[in-house]
C-alpha cells in the first residue's frame, strides 16, 4: 500500500484557512530562527532542537485536528506544539525556564506539553510517543468522541522497537491513530539512508497490515491531503495509517552541532523547495491570497515572537518552593 501521492491543488481550504496555515508555518519558522539566534547568545539553558524546514508536516497534519484529538511529539517538538495550538509565549517562557512557562519551567524545550490542547508533550525519548498515542486513540475509540491520535516521530525513531510495536498494536486494535514518520534525512549525525534498512519508512506499513504513504514534506498541500485522508479514515473506524514525510532538517541536530557529516544540502533546499516559499508562490499564483496579506501575517508573527522573547526574559523564575511540588496528585 506504499504509494507516492501526486501534489494536490489547495482543495478544501478557503482563504481564511490558508491564512491560518501560513500563519502557523511562519510562526514555527520565526520561533525557531529566533531561538537559533538566542541560543547562540547563551541565554537559553539545555538542549534545543529546531524544527525549521519541517513546518509543512506539523501544520499540514494539525490543520485537521481539534481539541478532542491528541498528538505526541519528539525532542524536536516546537513545531508540533505551535501547530496544535500551544500558546507561543508560554512555550518561549518554558524554553527560558521561567515560572510562566507552559510547564512552569520544569520541563524545558524537550518537554513542552499542553494536555488541554491534546498536546501530550515533546518527548526526550526517541520512540516515546507512539505507544502513548495508541492510548489516546484507544480512549477516543472507547469514548466514541471521533477523536484521533497522531504520533510524530523521526526517521531515527522508526528503528526503535517502541515505534514498531505501536504500528502493530494500533493495527490489531483498529485504532484511530496516525503515525507520521518525519524523515528529515538524519538522526543526529546518522543518515536515514543508512539506518533505515528499507527504501522508505513507509514500506514498513505493510508488515503491520496498514496503509503506508509517502509525501513530499516541503509541500504543505501534499501533507495536508495525505493527512486528511488518513485522519478521515481513522475517524470513520478505518484504522491507522503510516505517513512518511520526506524533507530536510535546516539546522544541526541540536543547536551547537557543527554538521560536518553533511555538505550543503540545506542551502539548496532553502532556495528551491522551502515549504514557506512553495506555499506562498502556490497561493499567490492562484490568486487566493496576496503578498500584502501574507506580509502582514509575517509582521504579526515577528511581533509576537519579539514579545514572547522579551516577556520570557523578564519573566520570574521558579523558586525553591516549586522544587518539590507536582510530583504526585496526592502522596
Amino acid at each position, binding site marked *: 500500500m506504499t504509494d507516492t501521492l501526486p501534489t494536490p491543488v489547495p482543495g478544501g481550504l478557503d482563504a481564511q484557512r490558508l491564512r491560518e496555515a501560513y500563519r502557523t508555518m511562519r510562526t514555527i519558522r520565526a520561533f525557531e530562527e529566533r531561538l537559533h539566534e538566542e541560543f547562540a547568545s547563551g541565554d537559553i539553558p539545555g538542549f534545543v532542537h529546531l524544527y525549521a524546514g519541517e513546518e509543512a508536516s506539523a501544520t499540514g497534519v494539525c490543520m485537521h485536528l481539534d481539541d478532542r484529538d*491528541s498528538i*505526541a511529539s519528539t525532542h524536536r517538538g516546537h513545531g508540533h506544539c505551535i501547530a496544535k495550538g500551544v500558546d507561543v509565549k508560554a512555550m518561549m517562557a518554558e524554553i527560558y525556564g521561567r515560572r510562566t*512557562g*507552559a*510547564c*512552569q*519551567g*520544569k*520541563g524545558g524545550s524537550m*518537554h513542552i*506539553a*499542553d*494536555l*488541554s490542547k491534546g498536546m*501530550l*508533550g515533546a*518527548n*526526550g*525519548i526517541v520512540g*516515546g510517543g*507512539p*505507544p*502513548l*498515542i*495508541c*492510548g*489516546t*486513540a*484507544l*480512549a*477516543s475509540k*472507547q*469514548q466514541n468522541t471521533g477523536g484521533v*491520535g497522531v504520533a510524530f516521530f523521526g526517521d531515527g525513531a522508526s528503528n526503535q*522497537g*517502541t515505534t514498531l*510495536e*505501536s504500528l*502493530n*498494536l494500533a493495527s*490489531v*486494535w483498529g485504532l484511530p491513530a496516525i503515525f507520521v514518520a518525519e524523515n528529515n534525512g538524519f538522526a543526529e549525525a546518522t543518515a536515514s539512508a543508512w539506518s533505515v534498512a528499507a527504501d522508505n519508512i513507509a514500506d514498513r506499513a505493510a508488515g503491520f497490515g496498514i496503509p503506508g504513504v509517502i509525501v513530499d514534506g516541503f509541500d504543505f498541500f501534499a501533507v495536508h491531503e495525505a493527512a486528511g485522508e488518513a485522519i478521515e479514515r481513522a475517524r470513520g473506524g478505518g484504522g491507522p495509517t503510516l505517513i512518511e514525510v520526506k524533507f530536510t532538517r535546516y539546522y544541526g541536530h541540536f543547536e551547537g552541532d557543527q554538521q560536518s557529516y553533511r555538505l550543503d544540502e540545506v542551502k539548496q533546499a532553502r532556495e528551491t523547495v522551502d515549504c514557506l516559499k512553495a506555499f506562498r508562490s502556490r497561493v499567490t499564483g492562484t490568486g487566493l491570497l496576496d503578498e500584502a496579506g501574507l506580509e502582514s501575517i509575517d509582521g504579526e508573527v515577528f511581533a509576537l515572537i519579539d514579545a514572547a522573547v522579551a516577556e520570557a526574559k523578564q519573566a520570574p523564575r521558579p523558586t525553591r518552593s516549586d522544587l518539590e*511540588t*507536582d*510530583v*504526585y*496528585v*496526592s*502522596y
Partner: protein
Amino acid sequence: MARTISYREAINEALTQEMERDSSVIVMGEDNAGGAGGSGEQDAWGGVLGVTKGLYHKFPGRVLDTPISESAFIGAAIGAATRGQRPVAELMFIDFMGVCFDQIFNQAAKFRYMFGGKAVTPVVIRTMYGAGLNAAAQHSQSLYPLFTHIPGLKVVLPSNAYEAKGLMTQAVRDDDPVIFCEHKALYDTTADVPEDSYTIPFGEANVVRDGEDVTIVALGRMVHVAEEAAGELATSGISADVLDLRTTSPLDDETILESVASTGRLVVVDESNPRCNVATDVSALVAREAFSSLRAPIEMVTAPHTPVPFSDALEPLYIPDAQRVVNAVKTVMGGQNA
C-alpha cells in the same frame, strides 16, 4: 458481609466493582481475556493465572487482549490515562519490566512534574512478583525496589486477600500511576474479605502484630514470614511488633519510627535482592530518624545477591524464611534470648 475468598478472587472482585462503578476503568494485557482470534472460547484464560477471568464477558469492549508488545500496550494504558480513561494494565511478570520500563518511569512517572503539574495519569500497572514457584531467574524476581526508587510512581504490595481488594480499589481510584505488585505464591491464599467495596489508603502501614521488644518491618509475602517468626519468637518470650508496609511509595515513615521508638530494635524482611532495596531504605530511615532510640544494630533479612535459582533444592534457601527472621531478631536482642 465478609466471606473467605482468595487473593486472586479479591483482586478480581475489586476490578469488577470498580468497572461497574466507573465506565472509564478498562483492563488490558496479554491474555487478560485470552482466546483472541482462536477457534474456541473467548476469555479462555483471564490472565495467565486467572486473575481477570470473567471480566471480558461482564464488560464488553473494556477488557483488551494485547500482542506481546509491553512497551506499546503499557504505553497505551498511560496515554489513555491522560485522556480520561482509568486503565489497569497487566505486566504479566514484574521480570518483564525491562522491555517497557521507559514508558513507566520516563513517561507516566514524570508527566505531572515535567508538565508543570498539569497532567493527571491514573494508570494502574498490575504485575506478578516473587519466588516460590520454581519459575527461575526471569520469572521470580522481586523488583519493586526499582519502582520504589522512581519519583512519581506509587508502589503497592498487598500481603493478603483483604489487603489486595482494598488496595486495588484504592489503586484504581488513585490519580497517580500505581505499580500494583501481586505475589504469585499468594493467589491461592484466602482471607475474610467484605463483599462491599472498600479502600485501604496508601502510605499507612498495617500493624499486624503488637509487640514490645523488636520491630519487624515486612512487605508482601514476607509479612507472613514475619508473622510466623513472631509467633515462634513469642514462645521464647520475645514480643515483636510486626508492620506490613502495604506501600513502599509512599512509605509510612511515621508508623515505622513510632514502633522503633518504643522497641529500640529493627529487623526488616524484604524478599528482594539486598542492594539498594526496601530493607536498606527502611534501615537508613531509622538510622537517621530514630537513631537515639536504637538499642542494637539494624538487621536485614533479604534474598542473597544472586539471581533466583531454579532448582527446588535451592529456591527455598534463596527466599527469606521465618528461621532467618528469628535468627536476625535474636541477633538484635543481643543473643540474650538465643
